[in-house]
C-alpha cells in the first residue's frame, strides 16, 4: 500500500509534467491539425535555458533560491514562447495550405534541427542541475515521507493548468482560440484574426513546454539533449489519450499516463516502462479512437 501511494504520487508529478507538455501539443493540434513534433525539443530548450540562466546569473548570491527559480521560470517560459512563435512563422505558416504531411515532415525537421543545435551548443553530455536549487524538505503525508520537490512540481503544474483552463474558458481571447479550433474559416468571417490566434497558441504552448522543461531539470536534477524526444512522444500520447484538441483531456491524459507509467515501472518492469505506455495508447485508441474526452465525430470510416 505504501509503495502504491509512493508510486501514485511519483506518477502524478511526472504526469503533471506530461500534461504541461501535452497542452502545447493539444492546442497546436486544435487550431492547426498539426502534430508539432518540435514541441518536445522546445521543452528541452527550456531545460537548458533554465540551467544556463540559473548558473550564469548566480541568483543564489542575490536572491534566495525560491525567488531565483521563480524568476528563471518566467524568463524561460517567455524565451521558449518566442522561439515557438518564430518556428511557426518560418516552418509552419508557409505550409498551412499545403498537404498535412508536408507540415509534419517540416516539424520533424525542426525537431532534428533543435536537437542538434542544443548538442552543438552544449555538447552531448548530461548536465546536472545545481543541487542547492532543489527544495530540500520532506512532507509527511498519510504517513508517507514525500519529497517536497515532488509536491511542488504537482502544485506548479496544477496551477499552470488551471490558469490556462480559466484563460481559455473565461477570456475573450480564449473564446477566439476555441472558435479558431472549431472552424478557422468561420472564425475569420466573424472578425477573428486567425493568424494572430495561431501566433498566440504558438506562444502559450511552447511557453508551458519550456516551463515543464525547467521543472524536469529541477525534479530529476539531470538533463540531456535527447530527452525532448521521449517526453514529447509521451506528452503527445497523453494528449491523444485524453482526446486530442481537448484541453481538459490533455490534463487528464497527462496525469493518467504518468500514473500508469509509474505503476508499470513499480510493478511490472522498469525496462518496459516506455513500451507499456505506448501499448496503453494503442489499446485506448482501439477501444475509443478519439480518446477519453474526445467527441465522437463523424469519422471517415
Amino acid at each position, binding site marked *: 500500500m505504501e509503495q502504491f501511494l509512493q508510486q501514485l504520487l511519483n506518477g502524478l508529478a511526472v504526469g503533471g509534467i506530461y500534461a504541461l507538455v501535452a497542452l502545447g501539443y493539444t492546442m497546436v493540434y486544435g487550431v492547426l491539425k498539426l502534430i508539432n513534433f518540435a514541441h518536445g525539443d522546445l521543452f528541452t530548450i527550456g531545460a537548458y535555458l533554465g540551467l544556463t540562466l540559473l548558473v550564469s546569473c548566480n541568483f543564489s548570491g542575490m536572491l534566495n533560491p525560491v525567488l531565483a527559480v521563480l524568476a528563471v521560470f518566467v524568463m524561460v517560459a517567455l524565451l521558449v514562447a518566442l522561439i515557438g512563435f518564430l518556428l511557426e512563422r518560418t516552418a509552419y505558416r508557409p505550409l498551412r495550405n499545403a498537404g498535412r504531411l508536408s507540415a509534419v515532415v517540416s516539424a520533424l*525537421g525542426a525537431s*532534428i534541427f533543435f536537437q542538434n543545435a542544443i548538442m552543438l551548443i552544449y555538447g552531448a553530455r548530461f548536465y546536472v542541475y545545481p543541487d542547492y536549487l532543489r527544495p530540500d524538505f520532506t512532507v509527511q503525508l498519510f504517513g508517507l515521507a514525500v519529497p517536497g520537490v515532488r509536491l511542488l512540481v504537482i502544485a506548479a503544474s496544477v496551477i499552470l493548468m488551471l490558469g490556462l483552463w480559466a484563460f481559455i474558458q473565461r477570456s475573450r481571447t480564449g473564446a477566439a482560440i476555441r472558435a479558431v479550433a472549431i472552424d478557422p474559416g468561420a472564425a475569420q468571417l466573424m472578425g477573428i484574426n486567425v493568424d494572430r490566434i495561431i501566433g498566440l497558441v504558438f506562444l502559450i504552448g511552447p511557453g508551458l513546454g519550456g516551463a515543464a522543461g525547467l521543472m524536469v531539470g529541477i525534479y530529476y536534477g539531470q538533463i540531456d539533449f535527447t530527452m525532448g524526444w521521449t517526453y514529447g512522444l509521451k506528452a503527445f500520447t497523453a494528449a491523444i489519450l485524453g482526446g486530442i484538441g481537448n484541453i481538459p483531456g490533455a490534463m487528464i491524459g497527462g496525469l493518467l499516463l504518468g500514473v500508469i507509467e509509474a505503476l508499470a515501472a513499480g510493478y511490472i518492469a522498469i525496462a*518496459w516502462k516506455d513500451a507499456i505506455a*505506448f501499448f496503453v495508447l494503442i489499446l485506448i485508441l482501439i477501444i475509443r479512437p478519439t480518446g477519453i474526452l474526445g467527441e465522437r465525430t463523424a469519422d471517415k470510416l
Partner: protein
Amino acid sequence: MKTEPLRIAVRVALAAVICTLPLFSNAYWTDVCVSIGLYALLSLSLNVILGQSGIFHMGHAAFFAVGAYATAILNTLCQWPIFWTMPVAGAVAALFALLVARPIIHLRGDYLLIVTIGIVEIVRIALINDVFGLTGGANGIFGISRPSFFGFRVVKGIQFYYLVWGMVGVSLLLFYGLWHSRFGRALNYIKEDDVAAEGCGVNVTHYKLMAFVLGAFWAGMAGTLYAAKMTTISPESFSFMESVIIFAVVILSGGSQIGVLISAFLFIGLPELLREFSNARMLIFGLAMMVMMVWRPQGLLPPRRRRYHVGSLVENGSGGDSSGGSDAGAGSSGQLDDAAATGGEQATGGRPA
C-alpha cells in the same frame, strides 16, 4: 508539359547513370550509393503504404527491423544462407504487419501516425530487452555472413551496389505493374477518397491491410540486404529516426517512383557531401527537411492524375476522352493529403457515377 518520349528518355538516362555509376566512383562513394539504394528500396516499400494508398504510416523501421533480425537470427543460429532467409524475412515482416495493422487500420490519419510511431518504439524496446533471448539485447547480433550465389560471394562494395540497385530495379518494375493493376487502382482510389471507395464496393480495410502487408514484405527483404551489408545489427539501426528519414523521402517524392529515387538521393546522398562539417551535419539535415518542404510541399514529382479509358466500366460523358491531355489535373491534386483531393476532380471526371 512533358511528352512521353521525353519521359522515356529521362528514365533511360537515369537507368544508364545508375548502371555505370560505380565504374567511375571510388569505394567511399560506392558505399554511399549502396545506402542510397537501401533507403530507396525502403522508401519504395513505404510508398506502397503511404505514397500510393495514403495511409499515414510512420513506423516502417519496425518492419525493416523485423526483417533484418529474422535474417540475422536464421543466419547466425541456423546457418541459413542469406538468400534463403530473404523471403522468410519478408514473410515474417509481412506477418508481423498483418498482426499489428489489423486492429489499428481503421484509425484516422493522425491517430494512425502516432500509433505506428508507438509500434516502432515498442519494437525497439523489445529488441533492447532481448525479447525471447534471441535479439542479443542492446549489443545486437554480429557475425552475419555474406550473401553468395552458387559459390560467388558478395563482399565488395561494388557487388553490393549491383545487388541493391538490382533489387531497386526489380521493385520499380514490379510496383509499376502493380499500380496499373486492379489492386493499385483500388489503393489509389482509397487514397483519394476512402468513403467514396467504400461506397463503390471497394473493401477498404482489406486493401489497406494488403498494402501494409506488401510494404512490410518489401521492407523485410530490404532488412535482409541491410543485415548482409552490415554483418552487424543492433536496435540503434532501427530507431524512429530511420522511420523519419524514409517518411520524409516518400513525402518529398510526391508519391511517384522516380521521385522516390531522386528524393532518396537528396536526403541520403547530399548530407554525405557535408561530411567535413560532421558535427553540424544533422543540424543541416533538419534544416534541409524544413527547407525542402517549404520549397516544394506537393513533392518533387506529384503524380499526374491517371486517365483510364474505362468505357467498359463506366459510361461517363467527360471521362475517358482525350481533351485534357495526359496532364489533366496535375497541378492541384498531387498532395498526400486525404483532405486535399479537390481541384483535379472535375478535370478527369474519373469518379464513377
